[in-house]
Each structure stands twice: as structure tokens, then as C-alpha cells.
């Protein structure tokens, strides 16, 4: 297939799936089968795209055949390629999980089309090479996310959505303002072209202040330290399949965008911007993990842990060495699988144990040893226990920190890992290890009272898939390492990206 077909396919396929799903609005069975077929198709398309990117390094398509700085370019480099692949695999997992997790009413409100549109918007953000186009993809991501958050209209969902909507509209406005000022200076919207034109610009102070605008806009989306409060307030409210998708993918897309902007465009004053990022990263790690220590609800612990993990990714970008960027790429990809898996497990634990509150759960390990094992694998991977996948991600980041003698951030990262382990052990001890609390009505030993066997299988299948991926990344880290290494090379050596996009 031609490069441009491969680059457009991850955007076109979810759009077709969503449209078909909307046309089959009345038939539940049709909607479900369309969604699953579409998700499988997306994995195939993403795999083909990644294979092509791996062969040809950076592939570019100019939309409408307008030459580079004038039209919209779609760019696939190794980082965006592996992200699109990870998103496709995880969204397949989410679609399967949704079959059992999402109730009939929500399906009738158009759950599957909204989820397909969300994956389209995520892919668009990952593949675009144009800042204004990225803004539009971000807005599409927002409106689908709003719909998914509020679908079903429960009180708590509406509450969470109001907070999410207001803060995200604010961040979009800041993003657009940043684009406006940047356009006023360089007169271009193509990211590679902006990077070239900024090299000769003689007022770096102005660029730095614009870069802070972008930092605020993306920081809000990524939930970094002073701007993360909306995340623990909203991510635990919708059904598990939706929170898992948000937790696994949306904040990581913002990290991808930060990595792109702060390695390609805003590198005029690295000493200033990346020092801010380093502080932000360190504080994000610490605050996130301390917040989790205070929570006793399964999903709230996991949601606020997202914030803590975001800190590690920001740390890698802030250290700004090839090794550190490598660590960030590895960490982001690994986190997508692990964090989503933990959320999905929390959903199964809720179905089997009847609650998300740790104090009301119990005896899960005794009755469902498979769930306990899968939770342990993901939890230890999150905390960075060797030989789990999270260990290699943290190893790369900490090695990068030691290389440039950033002792403080390395110390913080190691300490936060320990506290992460504490939170995970807390969930383990409360939900899996301890006996069921006295006077609790739920009979955890018999799941059939709560969920049918076929539905439980549908819930367990994606969890098994993601756990296997985590184990595979843990045992064979060299493959993801090689991918991350090439992604880091392309991010740090910007000329390859710029030349690929602007090549006539």
C-alpha cells in the first residue's frame, strides 16, 4: 500500500466504523459486531503502518497534495507509530471488555460510535504534523470524551463531567492562544517548518513565553502537578471500560504532544523550559503517589496514580538526553498497557466482590486466584519490580538521570517507586488477601450471583491479553527497547523529521 493510504487508514477506519454504528443505531447486535470487527481491523492497519514506519524510518503524506508548509502533513515517525499500535491494541481490549461491561441503555445512547470516534481523534493527534490540525483533533477528542464521560447521565458522572468539561475548554483556549501567537511570529502552522523558522528568530524570550502557554495547555491535559485536580475528580465516575480507556490513553497522548513540542519546536532555551519541566515532573510524581496513599477506593487509587506516573514521563522529557527520551517512550507505551489493565481488573473485582471500596472487598485471592495473579503482575509492573516491564522503563529513566548526575530527581523517582509499591500492596492486602469483612452481604465465592459466566469470560479476555503483553515486554524488553531507541534518536535528532516533512 502507498504511504499516504497507510497514514490515512487509522483515521478513516474508525470514522467508517462510527458511521456504520450510527446507521445501525437500533440494532444492538449489529453495533456490537461492527465495533469488534472495526477494532480488529484497526489493529491490522496500525500493525501495517508500524511495519512501514520501521522499514522506512519516517513516512509523510501531504493531504490534498499541497506541498509541505502550506497543506496539512500527516507524519508517522517511530514514536507516533508505536503509539498508534498501542492505542489500537488497547482499544481492541476495551471494545471486548465493553461487550460485558456497558449496559444496554448506554449502548443505545451510541457508546460504540463515540468510542470509535475517540480512537480516531487520538490517532489524528498522534499522526498530524500541523499545529492547528492538532488543535482540531484535540477538540474532537474532547467532544467524544465528554460524551463518553457523561453517557448514562448518572449524578456522579454528570458531576465529574462538568469539572472535566470546564477545565478542558480552558486548556483548549490556552492551546489556541499559543498557536495564534506562534503563528503571528513565524507565519507557519507546519511543525517542521515552525522548527526551521524559529532557529533564525532573534527574540528567544518571546518564544520561551509562548512555550510556557503550551506547557500550561498540555500540562492540563496530561494532569501534571499544579494542574491535575480535575483527574481524580472525574476519572472514577464513568463505567470501568470508559475510565480504563481514558486512564490508559488520553493523558499519554498529551505526554506524546509534550515530547513532540519540547524536542522539536521549543528548544531555544532548554535550560529554562526543561528545568521547569523537571520540577513539574518531580512534584507530579511525589504529589500523585502521596494522594494515592490517602485513598481507599480501588479506582481512585489508580486514578491518582496516573498523575504519579505522568511525573516519570515528564522527567524523561525534562532530562533531555537520548537515553532519557528513550526511557519516556518505553514508559509511555508500557504504561498504556499496565494502567489500563489495572483499571480493567478493578472492574472485575467490583463485579466479583460487589464494591470498589477496599474496605468492603475481600477474599478475592482465595476464590479467584487467576485474578490475583494478573493483578500482581500488573501492580508489580507499575511499581517497577524486576523482571516486570515497568522495571525496564524505570531503569532506563534512572540510568539516564545518573548519566547526567541529576541525583535529586533520581532519588525522588526511586522513593516514589517504593511508595507506588506501598499503594499496590495496600490494594492487594485489602481487596485480595484479607477475608471478607464481617456482616458483608456479598458472597464473593460465587460469581454467578453477580455476573454470568460468558460475561465474566468477556471481561477476563482483555485482561489476559494485556497481562500477556506486560509479561512479554518484561521478558523480552529488547524489542520495545530497540523501538524506543529509534524513536528517541528521531526525536532528539530533529533534522531527520524536518527533512522528511519538508522534502519537496
Amino acid at each position, binding site marked *: 500500500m502507498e504511504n499516504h493510504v497507510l497514514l490515512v487508514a487509522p483515521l478513516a477506519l474508525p470514522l467508517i466504523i462510527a458511521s456504520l454504528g450510527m446507521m445501525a443505531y437500533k440494532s444492538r447486535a449489529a453495533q456490537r459486531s461492527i465495533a469488534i470487527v472495526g477494532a480488529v481491523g484497526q489493529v491490522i492497519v496500525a500493525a501495517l503502518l508500524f511495519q512501514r514506519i520501521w522499514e522506512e524510518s519516517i513516512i509523510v503524506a501531504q493531504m490534498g497534495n499541497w506541498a509541505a508548509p502550506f497543506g496539512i502533513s500527516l507524519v508517522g515517525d517511530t514514536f507516533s507509530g508505536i503509539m498508534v499500535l498501542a492505542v489500537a491494541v488497547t482499544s481492541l481490549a476495551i471494545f471486548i471488555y465493553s461487550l460485558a461491561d456497558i449496559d444496554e441503555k448506554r449502548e443505545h445512547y451510541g457508546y460504540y460510535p463515540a468510542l470509535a470516534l475517540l480512537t480516531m481523534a487520538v490517532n489524528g493527534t498522534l499522526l498530524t504534523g500541523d499545529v492547528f490540525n492538532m488543535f482540531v483533533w484535540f477538540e474532537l477528542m474532547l467532544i467524544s470524551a465528554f460524551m463518553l464521560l457523561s453517557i448514562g447521565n448518572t449524578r456522579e458522572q454528570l*458531576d465529574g463531567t462538568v469539572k472535566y468539561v470546564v477545565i478542558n475548554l480552558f486548556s483548549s483556549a490556552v492551546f*489556541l492562544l499559543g498557536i495564534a501567537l506562534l503563528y503571528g511570529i513565524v*507565519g507557519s502552522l507546519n511543525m517542521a517548518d515552525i522548527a526551521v523558522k524559529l532557529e533564525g528568530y532573534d527574540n528567544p524570550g518571546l518564544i520561551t513565553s509562548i512555550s510556557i502557554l503550551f506547557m500550561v495547555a498540555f500540562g492540563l491535559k496530561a494532569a501534571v502537578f499544579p494542574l491535575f485536580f480535575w483527574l481524580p475528580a472525574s476519572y472514577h465516575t464513568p*463505567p470501568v471500560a470508559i475510565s480504563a480507556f481514558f486512564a490508559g490513553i488520553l493523558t499519554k497522548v498529551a505526554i506524546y504532544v509534550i515530547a513532540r513540542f519540547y524536542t522539536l519546536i521549543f528548544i531555544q532555551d532548554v535550560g529554562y523550559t526543561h528545568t521547569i519541566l523537571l520540577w513539574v515532573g518531580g512534584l507530579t510524581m511525589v504529589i500523585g503517589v502521596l494522594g494515592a496513599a490517602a485513598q481507599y477506593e480501588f479506582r481512585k487509587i489508580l486514578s491518582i496514580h496516573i498523575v504519579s506516573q505522568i511525573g516519570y514521563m515528564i522527567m524523561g522529557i525534562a532530562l533531555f538526553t537520548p537515553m532519557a527520551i528513550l526511557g519516556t517512550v518505553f514508559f509511555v507505551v508500557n504504561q498504556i498497557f499496565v494502567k489500563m489493565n489495572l483499571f480493567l481488573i478493578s472492574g472485575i473485582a467490583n463485579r466479583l466482590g460487589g464494591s470498589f471500596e477496599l474496605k468492603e472487598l475481600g477474599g478475592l485471592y482465595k476464590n479467584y486466584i487467576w485474578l490475583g495473579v494478573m493483578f500482581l503482575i500488573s501492580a508489580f509492573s507499575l511499581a517497577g519490580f524486576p523482571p516486570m516491564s515497568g522495571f525496564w522503563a524505570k531503569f532506563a529513566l534512572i540510568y539516564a538521570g545518573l548519566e547526567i548526575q541529576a541525583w535529586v530527581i533520581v532519588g525522588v523517582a526511586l522513593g516514589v517507586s517504593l511508595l507506588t509499591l506501598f499503594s499496590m500492596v495496600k490494594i492487594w492486602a485489602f481487596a485480595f488477601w484479607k477475608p471478607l469483612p464481617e456482616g458483608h452481604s456479598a458472597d464473593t465465592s460465587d460469581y454467578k450471583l453477580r455476573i454470568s459466566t460468558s460475561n465474566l469470560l468477556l471481561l477476563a479476555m482483555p485482561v489476559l491479553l494485556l497481562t500477556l503483553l506486560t509479561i512479554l515486554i518484561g521478558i523480552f524488553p529488547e524489542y520495545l527497547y530497540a523501538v524506543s531507541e529509534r524513536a528517541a534518536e528521531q526525536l532528539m535528532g530533529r533534522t531527520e523529521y524536518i527533512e522528511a516533512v519538508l522534502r519537496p
Partner: protein
Amino acid sequence: MEILLAITVGVLFASSIYLLLKRSLVRVVIGVLILSNAVNLAFFTMGRLTRGEPPLIAADEYVAAAGVANALPQALILTAIVIGFGLFAFALALIYRYYLATGNLQSDKMADAETPVADKFALANKEGE
């Protein structure tokens, strides 16, 4: 003219931040609307302001004459206005639904996400209908 628009943008930003910090959700949503308009106006100003010079390229030229207003930011804010309008409509509908479900429009009394609900999978009754 740029000075006048810059001041207008500043005033719009100030009033939108003021409204965003209010407790009433209706004012917060109006603040979001004003914010997106302030940004659009700032974007508009970025594309140069000239009077009586159409952005047309002469028949034998490849670029427009110097000093002509740039038409691209105007096209871009047209997109941004449409997107902003759609999101604003959604936000209005959302706070209306929120009001129907809870009878509350004060942001400091929003605690529904923090109080555990017995059955998370049951859809709420459509209150107020």
C-alpha cells in the same frame, strides 16, 4: 487599531477569568464562551489589520503585495468559532442535565462524584421529567 483590539482582548480575558472563578456554573460556562472569543480575537489581530486592501494577488504576481491582511488566521478562527460554539452548546446542555439530576448549580456544592453510590451500574432515574 491593534492597540484597541489588544485592549479589548485583555478586557475579555479578564472578565472571562473573573466569571470562571465564580461559584455559579452558568457564569462559569459564559466565562468559557468569552474566553474562546477572546482567543479568537487575539488570533484575528495576529493576521495584520489593514483597511481597504483586499487580499487579492495581482494577475502577474505570485504573492500578495506587502501590508495586505493575512486571510489564513481568519479562516482558522472560523474553524475555531464553529468548534467553540459546538462545545459551548454541549456545556450548556450538560449543566442543564446536571441541574435536572441534582437541583444544584453551585460549584462548591458539587460532591456527587465523591459520595459512593450503591449500584454503580444502574442508570439514574431521569429526575425532573
